[in-house]
């Protein structure tokens, strides 16, 4: 079924890490305090991010963007708020 099968142990990964000079720096763009982000974000050509929040805790349908949170925009020139009703819930397979 497989022509190539790679089962690599942690040691191999460590070697690979050392071999790759390219590194990434992590930064937090925004923190939500009430709502949980769902899925990843969409990036436009200007670097704006768009995403969705699941309803939970203080963030329920009908609450404001401030209560649910915002996704910040790189560069900080403006903000895009995501409010209810487009708040998809985390999916739960219904037939399992």
């Amino acid at each position: 079924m497989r022509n190539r099968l790679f089962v690599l142990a942690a040691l191999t990964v460590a070697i690979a890490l050392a071999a790759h000079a390219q590194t990434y720096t992590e930064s937090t763009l925004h923190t939500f305090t009430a709502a949980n982000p769902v899925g990843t974000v969409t990036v436009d050509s200007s670097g704006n991010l768009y995403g969705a929040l699941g309803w939970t805790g203080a963030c329920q349908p009908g609450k404001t963007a401030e209560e649910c949170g915002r996704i910040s925009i790189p560069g900080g020139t403006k903000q895009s708020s995501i409010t209810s009703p487009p708040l998809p819930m985390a999916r739960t397979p219904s037939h399992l």
Partner: protein
Amino acid sequence: MTLDAAGNLYGVTTYGGRTSSTFAFGLGVVFKITPQGKFSILHKFAASGLEGAQPTGPLTMDAAGNLYGTTVKGGSTSLCNNGCGVVFKVSDKGAFSVLHAFSQTDGEYPEGNLIVDTLGNVYGTTVYGGPVQGPINASYGVLFELTPAGKETVLYSFLGDGESCDGCYPGYIVRDSVLNFYGPGSTQSPDFDGGVLYEINTSESENFSYYFCPGVSGLCPNGAIASGQIVESEGLLYGTTAEGGGSDGNGQGVVYQLSPSTGIETVLYSFPADASQGREPQGISGDSQGSLYGTVSYGNGVPGGLVFKLTKSQ
């Protein structure tokens, strides 16, 4: 969320919209938000369930502005306990059609993304369905192709034997420049299911599998449980695992880079074990500068989460 050139956002909600006795929380909607923030519903799924029910995956837009998506249920009333799910097409004006309703043997429960090529063919996966296999007569999901007219071809049926499987229960996929498909799946390994990233090549066979944390229980410095949206760029794959990472393997997930040509995984970032930067990253998006974006939640009943960015060093 899907963006068009004019800055309109499109998405789905899994619940809400019309309700029925079968779908008491609603069958879901397809919505649009203009750059000015005006919200409108492009489509409410019919209460009969025959148009599909409970869309979950992202929408994919073709060059003409049509949107394609999936529902995990609906499409029929007699199969798969309230339907096996559908692939639907909706125009930016709301003209809706079911492109294909699954019937279990050809797929069930599509919840990942779709890929639409320049000819209008649609590619995706189903979590379940396909030919029943093994001693427990189970099915493990399929990779499918739909023509613009909705004719389905199962390109690959994931394999399992009742105790383990290989790339089964697939979700998100990407396709590279030479038309290979890649996506995260499961192994159902009785020891530890750290997940797998599979490749299905143009001859429609599973050609490559990278196993996360194979044969190990609990400590996974290179991440475990591959899931969520992945990105392909210049022959490399980028994605996340929901667990693992860190020098001791007790991290809260990783962002990884994987080379299908060499089988080498590089952990780009490990979420700290104390969950101070969240847990269970939910997939990756990329921009033209090579930066990666994603989200995490805090979990353990703590509301909230964060948006992170990984910036590539020059």
